[in-house]
């Protein structure tokens, strides 16, 4: 079943990927192909099967809530594309009055 252009647009919006029209066309074909491949799983009866999230019986790993040494602000910001006043800088999010 081929994905519609609207469905592909919805996926690229959720994934935050700006694709050209040609890339969107290619994505529609490739995604449709793999989704068809997934159809085979419908043959398996999983009605009363528990899902596996993790293979180990480890649950709710907790730690004591106390401060520990961490990276310096300088180290945290060293890879930031843009930063100012000790903060990551991004384009304006809130509209000006």
């Amino acid at each position, binding site marked *: 079943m081929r994905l519609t252009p609207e469905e592909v647009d919805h996926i690229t919006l959720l*994934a935050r990927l700006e694709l050209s029209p040609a890339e969107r066309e290619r994505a529609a074909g490739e995604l449709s192909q793999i989704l068809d*491949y*997934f159809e*085979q799983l419908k043959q398996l009866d999983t009605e009363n099967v528990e899902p596996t999230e993790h*293979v180990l019986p*480890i649950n709710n790993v907790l730690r004591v809530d106390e401060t520990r040494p961490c990276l310096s602000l300088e180290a945290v910001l060293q890879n930031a*594309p843009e930063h100012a006043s000790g903060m990551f800088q991004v384009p304006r999010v809130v509209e000006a009055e």
Partner: protein
Amino acid sequence: MPLTELTAYQLAQQIKTRKISCREVTNEFLSRIEEVEPRVKAFVTVLPDEARRRADLLDKRLAGGEDIGLLGGVPVAVKDLICTRGIRTTCSSKMLENFVPPYDAHVAERLAVEGAVNIGKANMDEFAMGSSTENSAFFPTRNPWNLNCVPGGSSGGSTAAVAAQEAPLALGSDTGGSIRQPAAYCGCVGLKPTYGLVSRYGLIAFASSLDQIGPIANDVRDSALLLQAIAGYDRRDSTSINRAVPDYLASLTGDVKGLRIGVPKEFFVQGVESYVVDAVRAAIDKLCELGAEAVEVSMPSAEYALATYYIIAPSEASSNLARYDGVQYGLRVAEPGDDIIAMYSKTRAAGFGHEVQHRIMIGTHALSSGFYDAYYLKAQKVRTLIRRDFEKAFSQCDVLATPTAPTVAFEIGSKTNDPFSMKLADVCTIPVNMAGLPAISLPCGFQNNLPIGLQLIGNLLDESTLFRAAHAYEQATEWHKQRAVVEKS
């Protein structure tokens, strides 16, 4: 014999007894890199200055009577998705081309404690997504056995470096076969440990419930040695297993009498070349000659593992890779006047290669509202069926023997237009990740001068039995002694 032909174990012994210095060993491998690297292209970053400084420091400590660790003075190549403090770590992606981690991964710390010398960061498929290392955003790595062929992937730089004797050991990571399949293609010994045995702290995440770091080496002893150095509990990884690490070298007894080897018939069917089937069957016969016994087992759910994987891994990846948004680190692409959504979307379109974008979109769709039950939840349930098949098999045997990959290494470019046939390269390795089991690939023959891989799969946390079986087979055969001759192009 040149130093580069010694095993890591031999190098560590000779350094310890002061027959050779760390500096000599590092220099030999750096010369070898200089000689063959222009043809093999295994490394994104070679670290000659850092490696020499480190070797000198280790020599000084050795002269002072210190124990410099299990890997004292042995060079190790490190896959470029393992964070190394102050050393560029790219994931072979434009997104992280200039990323310099401010901290070390747990395994990088372990290597330092055990005296290893980081000689360079190895090339890979971008974000570990691929089976040929052709998805590197920088350049493809070549197979040292035949420079026209791929080394496999995604840890192809790591396995090529070891096969070309540019490093005696390497670290890789394995989400669906990314250590074992390239190890098979390059004639190396590659181990994916039990999920949780090696800390993932500082491993750049692909699919968190599947990813595991493991050793790549020229023989089983070296594989055990490197695992010994990196295994163990780390509180910074919440899935890390907190229990004592066994002495893996002690498991290399050569004795496989009474060992029950399960042979799952579903791994020897369509798509697996007859020369691979013959080589793997001959390896099982050899183990039986040594005193093991073969039992046929069945894994009916295994054929669904590939589809299950292509839901679970991209789903987890779409979530993990959401962090690359041009804010905290990595690439940012924006034009004046762009709002934050436009900045995110341009950055991610420019920074990720095609395969990475493709998998992010699969995962985004599979997790999106209205599709979750049909895809992700269904896949997690099938995962349970696959686990049950393994549990049943291990009630009848101690290890499983299968091919590592259906073919030997293929030619560069031959599958890039058919991504689906590329995915089939992982059909024998993926079920193992689904169940979190340990598995090792080791050479068991050649076809057209290209290595064939035997995969042995063990029960949870039973790396010792894997090493014992693999070592016994290796000692009875000569495959691991053959080394690639890197052609002069």
